[in-house]
């Protein structure tokens, strides 16, 4: 057995990384295609307020982050579709409110410390069996939901107004996508941290889009690149003694560069 797998903390980290490596691009794929790449980042900032509330109230920060992220995701979608705010303004409003609430709550809890930093920058090497069970369960549920909604979500990407006219519940699909993004953010916090969570939702998709030949292939390539980035990033961080979250995202960014060069060589 390679040295990497000998320690339990690495086995748990690789398993959690693999789940998030698959789920983040699966949800991110539809956000990117609908030009909402930064929604994950916006939700992440609201999740920060949730983490702070969890520390203040002495309950699980992942749970409070999940609740806050859900509210943030639905708020962005509501403001975007009904509140009369342009997409980027809706995002900015939620983004800054989230971070401001987080700062106030953190200060109130007196929690500007290592506990908080593990949510900001990730702490995959401290994932426990209980954490992994939660990540695996919610991750599998998230992936199954994406699988079930793939056709209507892809249809809304192809032609949102046409789908609306035909009676497809596009509004409900948008809310479902926001809720999926919230679950992804809450689960990914321990892996790459709030500050980098959106990267795993966007970079594998951007890379896949450059080398794919159909929407379906772009979707599955996104998942493959996300998984490969998480596993290889963790492996590199283990042997090179680098921070895991940052290394995973740098590998994903590297995959984008490779895909962009490959696409340029193919003359696209």
């Amino acid at each position: 057995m390679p040295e990497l797998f000998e320690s339990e903390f690495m086995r748990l980290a690789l398993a959690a990384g693999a789940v998030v490596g698959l789920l983040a691009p699966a949800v991110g794929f539809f956000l990117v295609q609908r030009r909402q790449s930064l929604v994950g980042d916006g939700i992440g900032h609201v999740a920060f307020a949730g983490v702070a509330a969890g520390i203040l109230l002495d309950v699980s920060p992942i749970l409070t982050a999940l609740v806050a992220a859900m509210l943030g995701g639905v708020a962005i979608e509501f403001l975007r579709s009904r509140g009369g705010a342009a997409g980027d303004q809706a995002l900015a409003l939620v983004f800054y409110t989230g971070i401001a609430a987080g700062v106030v709550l953190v200060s109130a809890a007196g929690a500007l410390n290592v506990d908080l930093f593990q949510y900001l920058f990730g702490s995959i090497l401290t994932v426990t069996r209980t954490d992994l069970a939660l990540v695996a369960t919610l991750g599998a549920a998230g992936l199954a939901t994406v699988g079930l909604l793939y056709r209507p979500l892809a249809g809304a990407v192809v032609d949102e107004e046409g789908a609306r006219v035909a009676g497809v519940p596009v509004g409900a699909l948008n809310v479902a996508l926001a809720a999926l993004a919230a679950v992804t953010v809450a689960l990914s916090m321990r892996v790459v941290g709030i500050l980098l969570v959106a990267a795993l939702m966007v970079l594998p998709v951007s890379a896949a889009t450059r080398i794919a030949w159909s929407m379906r292939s772009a979707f599955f390539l996104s998942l493959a690149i996300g998984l490969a980035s998480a596993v290889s990033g963790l492996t590199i961080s283990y042997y090179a003694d680098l921070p895991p979250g940052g290394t995973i995202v740098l590998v994903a960014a590297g995959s984008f560069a490779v895909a962009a060069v490959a696409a340029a060589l193919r003359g696209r």
Partner: protein
Amino acid sequence: MIPAVELDRLSFGYRPGQHVLEDVDLQIAEGEFVAIAGPNGGGKTTLVRLVLGLERPGTGRALLYGEPAHRSSRRRALGYLAQRSELGGDAPTTVREVVSAGRLAAGRLFGPLSRHDREQVSAAIARVGLEAVAEAPLQTLSGGMQQRAFIAKALAGEPSLLVLDEPTTGVDAESQESLAALLDRLHSELGVTILYVSHEFGAVERFVERLVLVRRTLVFDGPPSSLPGFWHDPSHLHA
């Protein structure tokens, strides 16, 4: 017989007191091929949005098969080609994937396509003559071919009413001609009601049974042959 589309003393404005459409009466029977033309800003696209139920009338009624358009049970019978139809995302999307999206309303919403769905998708692709490029990304095709793919998407839902909003925008003259001929075939072979909305109607003039000119209200409604000669002059309509 209940008309496919009925606008009854309809007025509409996006802001209070500013009517884009005023006192419009229009009935379109099932099986008609109607061109709706008029100057840019004359209210054509707004009229389409009311017919599709995307907007609700300020006063009057917009009915689709006898029911208020925005909650008509026959909305699934609509095929819609939006103005400047283009893909929402930047992922390469094949013609077959685009056309498959047209089965969402007619077939099952969730889960994979059924065999009947796949047959309808293939039939729609064949009907617009794109079999040879069915697996090619839409982004690699010409504007005219992309337009055909979106028409196939609308056809895949087995519509009884096809609404096309400015379908010739960004399409060369040859493609416009072949688009008009395709619509004529669909009309005669499938009996589909067609609402063709454009700022100019030259391409379909010889195929349509009825021409409606909109300039805030209806200023002409009849066969193209009885249109006064000076109205063919675009400068007149745009004045």
